């Protein structure tokens, strides 16, 4: 047990970073004003001063949290250690608020931040869902509504990216037998840059908000309030995290697998993480570019998307969706990999068609680059272009189908048990099935002309997001909870979370799809009572509250169980995967004192006498953790 150690607030990296960001932004704003005066312009102009100033604030945050420290030292010719010890005068929990090079700490940091943003975006949703429950405006004016839906969208996207960062960062090194990621400092940098980025995005609320939704189409975004710039800059910064994190995953997987871990003997989640990272590494630049072009149109009058200045509004949409479509495959591929990872453990039989599943993730990543204009069927691009994009979009259904059929094959003739992680895995399959099957009507252009920009689309993409990320993410959190904390979560509360969230989600989604078909448009804060949607809207709102409650129960469960939960066995799920063969808590640098080699297939459950990994160490496993 740690004695109660006092912590100086200012010694925490997160706090130092935020203070540096605020001060740095103010100094940055002054700096921009000075440059303007030297150029003969009036000192104050809200846009350039805020944009330039807060950009500097992002850099100063990173300096304050220490993300540049080792690199500055190298520039000065000083040595640094690859294995910094945690400060012994601080309690154990403080390490999660500081810069750490340990991928397991970074994974938890990503996970907690993801859940925080999930709660924030969920709160935004409850606010506007409460307004929407009845026709006519009750309390939320249209301007505030527009900002909240836009923020809900982008904060949820950030929450998803961070949740994926949590799973990939924590698991990939452990799964391939590495002691850490290939580039630990880059890993820490990529995590911490999300904090100032998220603060910028939320700051948009205080600078007039933005009325465009997260898709930020010009000309509307070119004339939106100042909050729009905070949104653009924040997303720009968060995007960099995706790119750098992706690089790390790919290099770690290629270069740091342990003996015997050839590509088709890795845990399947690693394939999913690599496919995701290939997209993240190469496509993210396009959203940054498209946003930067609108920022420059606003700041410097460059008329990229201004029809009065030689610009074309459709160009933005091509550039934006070239990233944002592959992005949705980033959102779901890890979760689908998670489903593949957990089904064999709880069915006690092999993953059906491992190689086909591994290749299907790569195929989805590849085909995903060729479909972006299906978001633009009504946008006014060349009419004939819509047809090839329809064919390519329909094509994605094929590798996705391979996954579903393989999952059925994995369950078939198994010996299935249903603890909470398995419930969430199975729930994920059914919800993602709903989402995936409601895709083809959007892909065939003619039907999309009716469906585009309605609640049918809202139902479709929430189903793919819940099925492809939310449910699998909770499955992963429950499953690895004992590995990360050494304690078990409360199983009754876990099941309650599931049995509240699954039916509520189905109701929410189906009701949204129904009113969408009947004429309910997206992104409107009020709707005509004559449409008769009041009851459905109320049902959707109630479902939303139930989902929020269910997730809150989970957070409480994790919070209490992490401190007071029953001490867990080292391998409660009887998994063959290497991370479960380590003692509790997982030693610093993982397998350095507990090396292993791969001697068999990962998922040969049910094959007498077969092993996946053979631990080479003679170190006895430590007694269970405090």
């Amino acid at each position, binding site marked *: 047990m740690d004695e109660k150690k006092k912590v100086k607030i200012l010694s925490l990296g997160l706090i130092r970073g935020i203070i540096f960001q605020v001060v740095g932004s103010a100094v940055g704003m002054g700096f921009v004003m000075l440059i303007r005066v030297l150029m003969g312009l009036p000192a104050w102009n809200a846009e350039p001063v805020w944009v330039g100033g807060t950009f500097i604030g992002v850099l100063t945050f990173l300096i304050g949290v220490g993300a540049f420290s080792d690199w500055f030292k190298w520039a000065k010719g000083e040595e640094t250690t690859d294995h910094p010890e945690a400060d012994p005068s601080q309690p154990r929990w403080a390490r999660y608020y500081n810069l750490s090079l340990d991928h397991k700490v970074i994974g938890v940091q990503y996970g907690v931040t993801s859940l925080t943003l999930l709660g924030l975006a969920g709160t935004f949703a409850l606010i506007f869902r409460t307004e929407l429950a009845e026709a006519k405006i009750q309390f939320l004016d*249209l301007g505030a509504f*527009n900002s909240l839906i836009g923020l809900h969208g982008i904060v949820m996207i950030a929450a998803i990216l961070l949740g994926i960062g949590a799973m990939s960062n924590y698991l990939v090194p452990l799964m391939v037998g590495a002691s850490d990621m290939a580039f630990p400092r880059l890993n820490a940098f990529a995590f911490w840059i999300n904090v100032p980025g998220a603060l910028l995005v939320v700051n948009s609320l205080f600078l007039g908000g933005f*009325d*465009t*939704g997260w898709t930020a*189409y010009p*000309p*509307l975004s070119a*004339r939106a*309030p100042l909050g729009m710039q905070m949104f653009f800059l924040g997303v720009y910064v968060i995007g960099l995290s995706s790119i750098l994190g992706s690089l790390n995953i790919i290099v770690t997987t290629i270069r740091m697998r342990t003996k015997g871990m050839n590509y088709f003997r890795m845990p399947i989640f690693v394939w999913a993480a690599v496919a995701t990272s290939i997209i993240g590494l190469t496509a993210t630049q396009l959203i940054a570019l498209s946003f930067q072009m609108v920022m420059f149109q606003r700041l410097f009058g460059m008329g990229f998307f201004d029809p009065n200045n030689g610009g*074309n*509004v459709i160009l933005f949409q091509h550039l934006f969706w070239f990233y944002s479509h592959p992005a949705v495959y980033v959102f779901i591929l890890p979760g689908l990999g998670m489903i593949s990872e957990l089904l064999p453990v709880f*069915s006690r*039989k*092999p993953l059906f*068609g*491992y190689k*086909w599943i591994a290749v299907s993730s790569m195929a989805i990543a590849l085909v995903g680059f060729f479909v972006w204009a299906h978001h633009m069927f*009504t*946008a*006014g691009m060349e009419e004939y272009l*819509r*047809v090839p994009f*329809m*064919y390519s979009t*329909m*094509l994605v*259904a*094929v590798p996705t*189908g391979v996954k579903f*059929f393989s999952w059925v*094959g994995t*369950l078939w*003739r198994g*010996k*299935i*048990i*249903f603890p909470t992680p398995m419930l969430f895995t199975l729930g994920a399959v059914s919800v993602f*099935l709903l989402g995936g*099957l409601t895709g*083809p*009507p959007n892909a*065939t*252009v*003619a*039907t999309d*002309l*009716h469906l*585009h*920009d309605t609640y049918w689309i809202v139902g479709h993409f929430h189903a793919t997001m819940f099925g492809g990320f939310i449910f699998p993410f909770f499955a992963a959190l429950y499953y690895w909870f004992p590995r990360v904390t050494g304690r078990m979560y409360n199983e009754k509360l876990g099941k309650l979370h599931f049995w509240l969230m699954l039916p509520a989600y189905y109701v929410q989604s189906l009701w949204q799809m*129904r009113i969408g078909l009947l004429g309910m*448009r997206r992104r*409107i*804060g*009020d709707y*005509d009572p004559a449409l008769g949607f009041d009851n459905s809207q109320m049902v959707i709102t109630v479902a939303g509250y139930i989902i929020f409650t269910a997730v809150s129960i989970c957070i409480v469960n994790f919070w209490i169980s992490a401190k007071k939960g029953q001490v867990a066995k080292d391998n409660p799920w009887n998994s063959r995967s290497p991370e479960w063969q380590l003692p509790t808590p997982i030693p610093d640098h993982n397998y350095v004192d507990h090396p292993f080699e791969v001697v068999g*297939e990962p*998922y040969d*459950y*049910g094959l007498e006498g077969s092993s996946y990994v053979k631990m080479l160490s003679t170190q006895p496993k430590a007694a269970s953790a405090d």
Partner: protein
Amino acid sequence: MKHFVRVGILTTILTVLIGSGLDNLGLMPVLASVQGAAIDALFRKHIWVISFLFSLIIGFMLYSFVVFRRKPGEEGDGDHFEGHTSLEIAWTIVPLGIVMYFSFLGASALAETRRADPNAYNITIVGSQWSWRFDYTDYDFSSTELRLPIDRQSLLTLTSTDVIHSFWVPEFRLKQDALPGEGMERELRITPTLLGDYKLRCAELCGLEHAYMVSDVIVMEVDDFEEWVEEQIGGPSGDAAARGEEWTKQFGCVACHSTDGAERIGPTWFGLYESEETLVDGSTITVDDDYLFESILDPQATIVEGYDTVIMPPTGESMTEEQILDIVEYIESLTE
């Protein structure tokens, strides 16, 4: 083998239940256009395939949860099999064929919606924040409501004066974004098939009042439509203020300006003439003929305090000088 038979039966039952349930639920609004027929037919095919595939996967899963669950006290693992190559090939090739077929159906349906009638009526639809205007270019008049003749094709040319809007009448099914810029006009062809009153609601987020950017759509018998057209182009009144009132209705000014003192997005015209206003730069002016004329033609030239964040569309650019002068006369007539 018996497992497959049982699952097959379960899947069939689920497919029929879900498919016919959805088929009879009345998923779509009433169909009121020729072009929508191909869309509804294709959507119906989608619904049946969705019902089948959902039932197939869920059927196998539910069956497995019951038949293949670990019974209390049971030891041991599941059946050890790693895959089945012919099955993998089959469930790659067959779905590939199905999706290619649906793509082909989609292309055919799209072609149906684009069939052109050379004798179509021509209407230019102008979207502005936050109202629609309908320019009947065959007859040289404008309206704030969209009236269409039944069973005749109308060629709608869509454009915008500011940001991206989108044309959608759910009963017609088709949707098309209205874009700003020269040469960015886009087309939709609609042949209404059902008399009645519908609503056109903007379907692309266009700013603050997007939710309320709505116009009436009336489908009429051809004779009634021609009669309405006659009334619109029938000689203008001799009185300038009365003509001005007509123009404000046709050009959609009343979406933002009230005539009774009520506060809307733009300043009310009631009592506006000869009043004193403070401008954004602090100076004061008296609202006279010249100021009103300038404000209609170039709304951003001189802005009154409090209205600097609201952008009035350049509607005046579509008007003749006489029309603007008529409107000024009309505003003048709205004294306290």
